[in-house]
């Protein structure tokens, strides 16, 4: 297990290096400059500023400097916000985003699993069709439409929940719901399919032949086996939440990472864009890593393949 983990960490670092490189060169290809948008600077001032940020150096030098800083955890200084370090800006914004993302992922997974399990147990009944209908809605309607709808109904009309801002738990409810819809829909569909397949397998038949009750079979035999493939989609769903939060944080005026990221793009704030991209990538790679570890915990066959003695 240790060797496997180390191997995985090395792969993660390589992936991160590739992403950092790509981000850097893509950034250089981007038209426009962070300074042009103001247009109040004299050419001399621009030269001075370019010098200060190292933008006059040849590209390879810039690249090496950038990688060197990155290795030390330094993501550079913002062009727009009084030279604040990007790491500090990310750290200041991560709280609301993390809370929102985790809440959406946990809520989405739990509700999705429960819906999927019930739909499988009661398959081809009214409940199953209802769950399918909800899932189709959840998958096809974008989260921002759902968010706007909730703001109108729950916020404006019924006045049950605050329409926007970030001032306590009640403010998290609507954005969490908006982000978890897609997760619920996907997990419930997937879980239903997997569980039905598992229920038709030989070992479930053997468990029945042992005289185990239907509920015992589902709880002790079926769910665990059905969960294994479901775990694999948690990674992509986490990414969906991350990208969804870019829009959702804007809609609900949440001071999170996504909101800052969107702003930095419209202001050509190079270092913030690059830093946040790399941060998101690292997070994503980490999530996939955690999912793989989870996989190993649930599936004894993987554990062995990982080389545990």
């Amino acid at each position: 297990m240790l060797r496997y983990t180390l191997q995985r960490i090395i792969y993660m670092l390589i992936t991160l290096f590739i992403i950092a490189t790509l981000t850097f060169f893509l950034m250089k290809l981007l038209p426009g400059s962070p300074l042009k948008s103001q247009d109040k600077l004299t050419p001399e001032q621009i030269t001075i500023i370019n010098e200060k940020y190292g933008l006059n150096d040849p590209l390879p030098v810039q690249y090496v400097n950038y990688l060197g800083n990155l290795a030390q955890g330094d993501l550079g200084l913002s062009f727009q916000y009084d030279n604040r370090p990007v790491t500090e800006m990310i750290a200041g914004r991560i709280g609301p985003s993390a809370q929102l993302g985790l809440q959406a992922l946990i809520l989405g997974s739990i509700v999705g699993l429960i819906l999927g399990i019930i739909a499988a147990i009661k398959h081809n009944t009214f409940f199953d069709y209802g769950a399918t209908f909800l899932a189709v809605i959840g998958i096809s309607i974008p989260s921002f439409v759902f968010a706007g709808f909730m703001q109108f109904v729950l916020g404006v009309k019924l006045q049950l929940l605050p329409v926007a801002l970030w001032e306590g738990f009640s403010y998290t409810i609507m954005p969490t719901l908006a982000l978890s819809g897609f997760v619920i829909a996907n997990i419930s569909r997937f879980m239903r399919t997997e569980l039905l397949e598992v229920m038709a397998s030989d070992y479930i038949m053997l468990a029945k032949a042992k005289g185990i009750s239907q509920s015992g079979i589902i709880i002790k035999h079926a769910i665990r086996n059905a969960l294994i493939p479901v775990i694999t989609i948690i990674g992509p769903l986490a990414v969906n939440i991350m990208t969804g939060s870019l829009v959702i944080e804007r809609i609900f005026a949440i001071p999170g990472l996504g909101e800052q990221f969107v702003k930095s793009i419209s202001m050509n704030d190079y270092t913030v864009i690059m830093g946040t991209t790399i941060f998101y990538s690292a997070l994503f790679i980490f999530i996939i890593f955690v999912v793989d570890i989870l996989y190993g915990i649930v599936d004894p066959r993987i554990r062995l393949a990982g080389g545990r003695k």
Partner: protein
Amino acid sequence: MDKVLEVKDLHVSFDTYGGIVKAVRGVNFDLKKGETLAIVGESGSGKSVTSKALMRLIPNPPGRISKGEILFDGRDLTKLSEKEMQKVRGKEIAMIFQDPMTSLNPTMKIGSQIMESLIKHQNLSKSAARERALELLRLVGIPQPEVRINQYPHQFSGGMRQRVVVAVALSCNPKVLIADEPTTALDVTIQAQILELMKDLQNKIDTSIIFITHDLGVVANVADRVAVMYGGQIVETGTVDEIFYDPRHPYTWGLLASMPSLDTSVQTELAAIPGTPPDLMHPPKGDAFAPRSAYALEIDFEHEPPMFQISDTHFAKTWLLHENAPAVEPPKAVVDRRRSMSANFAKPRLVEEAVR
């Protein structure tokens, strides 16, 4: 000998989009204490459906037992509630499936899978169940049971897994053990070991076995009696000797003629049974085997044959046994093997169809 199990006029059908598949169409047989009954027949003849029906394991929908009785210990299993049935499964009647690679739960330790039924049916504590599981693993010949009990199925070979499945099935000393092609997925030496193991354990705990197979070679080794199934019906039953040396149904002839045997050292040609199995959605009128049979009589296409009795233990469902039927010559492979049975009646008797 007293009967442990008596199946009367069992019908099982599946409601599919295309129509109703009548997979089992009036099966009658009984099982005596301590005996092994083999059910043979080609693929799709309804062997597995029959055996699953005995344990009420036919998935519903689409399947259902549409008619008939399964008398076990004086109770009709078809009438039991699901709860009552759970007390029968695993405790009174146990089952072994064909493919040991898929019949164990991949994410549950071997020990837990054996202990499960012990805890459920014998009210054993966890530690007592564990002790018994170790004992069972030893009994079915698994080395190092203390280590093995904590392992998962993927750490076992196919033969070892089937031993575990046998241990699971025998854990509560069932009165009836249904083995649905328990050795088909295993290679020949392992096959022999598993069969040996089953026979051994049968003697120890005095279980009756229903042994399903399409390998007649295996039948000769394990069974006391044989039931030959075709198209959802039992077309011939008898002792092993009666079926092998004095078969009466053309389908049984076909099966025997298509069986390679070691004792006929001369190169005998294996005769495959021509044609395809009957469409169970629209079973043919008359004898279901008639369209494929070289011995079919005109009446076979009109009326379903009744059961004729050749001896106390030998029954066959074919018009050829009717007193007005012409004498026919069975395939050479069958004739070569034929012996006269001293217990046979002077003339086949028509069985009064009381249950039909």
